[in-house]
């Protein structure tokens, strides 16, 4: 009789410990956490801290990335049971490279408009041995650093003016004709004195990617090649004279690609005849031009250079001391999400070409087929080779010294 209560105490202790153990395990388990009564849950086991990923991206893709982030946050994707919080900030592509090099920005994931800037960042950070232990990005590592969207540089012009300048079919002489037109100064040479002087706008290559790409395409075009651009090509005095002459007559070297596109529509052809922008930017505004002016001027015409340069919008996880291991891991998860089929289709609807080539540009919801009459192409011209960092630097230095207004 006397041993029974003793046994009960032991049993109670055993069962009790087991119950508490199961409960604690249950609270820790994600499946249980999700359905548990929240205040009790948080009291017993504090929720896991989110991993904050700082994402610095270039402005042209803002509309797409904001929508993609909204979807990501509701997807419930986690790393080791921890939610991922994305802190977005945007800037110009070149600005962001300089901000990282100067230590003013410490992002975990970076996305300029083009691999060109990644190439620059890699070379320049490798050279800054005082500030960095090595290059902060590795563009050869396709797992952590890869293109996510494509959009080529195009010229956008009012159709009536593009037709006069290039005829029905722009050809290999596109840049030469533009150079000639811009330096001829006036439309009266083309039989249209009422259009005044020829107004071409592109962004400043020192500030914005589309301006740099335009400069690169003209440089390649002058050198008569599409790969292997060298410092000698840029230091060639005939080329320098040729380009300086063009630069002097450019109506404006602006800061932002989007602004050019907005202005060519808002002001009509009085302000700009031709601007160099991204294909995606052009697609966004084709309907606006029609709404504003109807069929006057024939609407906007998109003209593709014979060989183009892609903005490939790479996303690269940084390899720097401010990027903790779990931040790198979470950044990688987000990067993989951006290349998922769903988010690639979303990009297409925003006028970008998906890197996922199983998604046809002609699929439902794509704006590409709709604007074929404006010159938008489903195929893509060949691309120039991205020169190495030192050649890019020579180009920038030449521009800063000789052309900078």
């Amino acid at each position: 009789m006397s041993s029974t209560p003793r046994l009960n105490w032991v049993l109670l202790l055993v069962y009790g410990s087991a119950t508490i153990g199961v409960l604690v395990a249950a609270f820790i388990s994600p499946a249980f956490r999700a359905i548990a009564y929240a205040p009790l849950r948080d009291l017993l086991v504090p929720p896991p801290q989110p991993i904050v990923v700082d994402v610095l991206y270039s402005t042209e893709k803002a509309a797409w990335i904001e929508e993609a982030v909204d979807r990501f946050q509701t997807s419930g994707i986690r790393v080791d049971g921890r939610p991922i919080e994305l802190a977005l900030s945007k800037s110009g592509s070149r600005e962001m490279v300089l901000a990282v090099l100067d230590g003013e920005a410490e992002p975990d994931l970076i996305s300029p408009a083009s691999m060109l800037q990644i190439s620059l960042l890699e070379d320049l950070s490798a050279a800054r041995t005082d500030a960095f232990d090595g290059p902060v990005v590795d563009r050869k590592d396709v797992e952590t650093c890869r293109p996510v969207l494509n959009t080529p540089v195009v010229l956008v012009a009012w159709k009536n003016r593009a037709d006069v300048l290039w005829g029905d079919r722009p050809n290999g002489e596109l840049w030469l004709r533009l150079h000639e037109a811009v330096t001829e100064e006036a439309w009266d040479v083309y039989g249209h004195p009422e259009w005044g002087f020829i107004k071409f706008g592109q962004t400043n290559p020192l500030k914005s990617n589309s301006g740099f790409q335009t400069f690169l395409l003209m440089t390649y075009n002058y050198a008569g090649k599409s790969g292997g651009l060298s410092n000698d090509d840029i230091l060639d005095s005939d080329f320098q004279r040729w380009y300086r002459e063009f630069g002097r007559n450019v109506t404006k070297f602006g800061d932002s690609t989007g602004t050019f596109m907005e202005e060519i529509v808002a002001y009509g052809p009085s302000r700009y005849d031709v601007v160099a922008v991204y294909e995606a930017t052009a697609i966004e505004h084709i309907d606006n031009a029609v709404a504003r002016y109807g069929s006057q001027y024939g609407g906007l015409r998109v003209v593709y250079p014979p060989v183009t340069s892609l903005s490939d919008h790479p996303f690269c996880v940084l390899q720097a001391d401010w990027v903790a291991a779990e931040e790198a891991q979470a950044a990688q998860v987000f990067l993989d999400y951006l290349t998922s089929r769903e988010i690639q289709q979303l990009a297409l609807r925003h006028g970008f070409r998906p890197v996922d080539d199983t998604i046809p540009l002609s699929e439902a919801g794509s704006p590409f087929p709709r604007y074929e009459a404006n010159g938008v192409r489903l195929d893509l011209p060949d691309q120039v080779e991205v020169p190495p960092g030192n050649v890019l630097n020579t180009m920038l230095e030449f521009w800063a010294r000789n052309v900078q207004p």
Partner: protein
Amino acid sequence: MRRRLKSSIVVLTVLSAMLVACGGALPLPGGKTVTISMIYGSEKEAWLVPLIEAFNAEKNETEGGATIVVEATPMGSIVSGDGIVDGTLQPTVWSPASSAYVPVANMNWRQKHGEDLVLGTPNDLVLSPVVVAMWRPMAEALGWPEKPLGWADIAEMATSEEGWAAYGYPEWGAFKFGHTHPDFSNSGIIAVIAEAYAAVGKQRDLTLSDLEDPTLRSFMTDVESSIIHYGESTGFFANRMFERGPSYLSAAVMYENLIAAQEAKRLSGESDQPPVVAIYPKEGTPWSNHPYIILNAPWVTEEQREAAEIFEGFLLAEPQQRKSVEYGFRPADPSLALGPPLDRRHGVDPNEPQTILEVPPAEVIVGVQELWRAEVKKPVDVVVVLDISGSMEGKKISSARSSLVDFIDLMDDRDRLEVILFNDEMITLTDLSPLGEKRQDVRNRVSGVVERGDTKLYSAVELAYRELEEKGNPDHIRAIVALTDGQDTASTITLPELVNRIESQSESGDATKIFTIAFGRAADRDVMRRIAEITGGKQYDSDPETIGEIYAEIATFF
């Protein structure tokens, strides 16, 4: 034009803005508020003012929870830019009629502060091209709309001896042209730059050496000789043209939106003037783009900057942008379509302009301004008629004397001045002759004037009128500025006689303008208004406190 005029106008405008603000949206006690002040080009007043009221009523808040209050003052774009640079104006936001003068403001600011006043490229609020407004029958006589017209055609008309007779309309008289004062208003400086471009046959790259060209100088001087008078703001100038009709002014430089608005009035029966059309100069024309500039100035706080950005977002949001079309603007938002009154029915053509006239760099703009002041500007012949009757004693006569001296200082050496003092007799203090040679003498004599006797207003005005008829140079702007504090008690002519005398000559815009200042409450305002308005001049109510401001405003006409 001298700097003092500008600074006095600036100071007085700020004072009046403060008075208005005190009577207006004062925050409720207890709540935290952040007030942002905005100085803007007056042409967008009709669109902007109701939006500011709506925004303030919404009680928008900053992130820190402060309620945003916007206070706004309309002002000429050039004078406001200069006022901000010299610190007499300290708004949070500056929204001039166009970006044209921004490089000049930046250049001057950099000299003092080492950095730019305006950073980056500010957003445009609304757009409107600079155009030449012309009465439709006159435009048609010049071949419009089949024949494209340009700045050079306007200049040719302005310099022609024959005027409208050359086009088969002798009854229209001379070609009477107008633009605002280039030291005050955006459209004024644009007009003068366009004249310079037309003179050298360029559409861009106007240089300082172009301005040295004697042909350019004589060309511009000839064009300016057809000016009827200048003015402080484009909005006022447009009103003047649309109220007084074709006999007053044939054509004036203004913005497309003002023409669309006038035509909307005419079509609804509010205005009985003939139709007016916008001529988009064939050489191209600059745009008025109404940039929204949050100033990079030490007096702008972080909280004000945040509040100003919130207000900017409101103005750029679709409903507000859409609203601008009703006022004849083209919205800056490229996704919005254009619609009535922006159509041919309202005298404007949304498919124009075809090209732009490039705004030259800062130093060239300053060069054009200097050239205009020193050489090109149309001189004025002005007769000042000053009441020195016994009732002017005390503060009245002393303030009248000192502000008249200030007024004299605002005039250029090439201008000609006569001063007539009156009580029961009339004394010519100085004859109509160039001011350059007698400036100090006149200043001294005006400062010594004493008051006594009766008021012989009508006779004095009549004498001034006769003086300008006989001795005035028809190639100059001719004006009378008459100040009195009482009613006529001693004239040898009656008011109807005086009115008759003036009315027979005053139809035309280049006739003598009379500006009357009713000084104190006893002055007969109705009579003074009548005298002023038949000439296209203006009547002002004044007192010893505001007399300086009135003289300064009158000076912007010439």
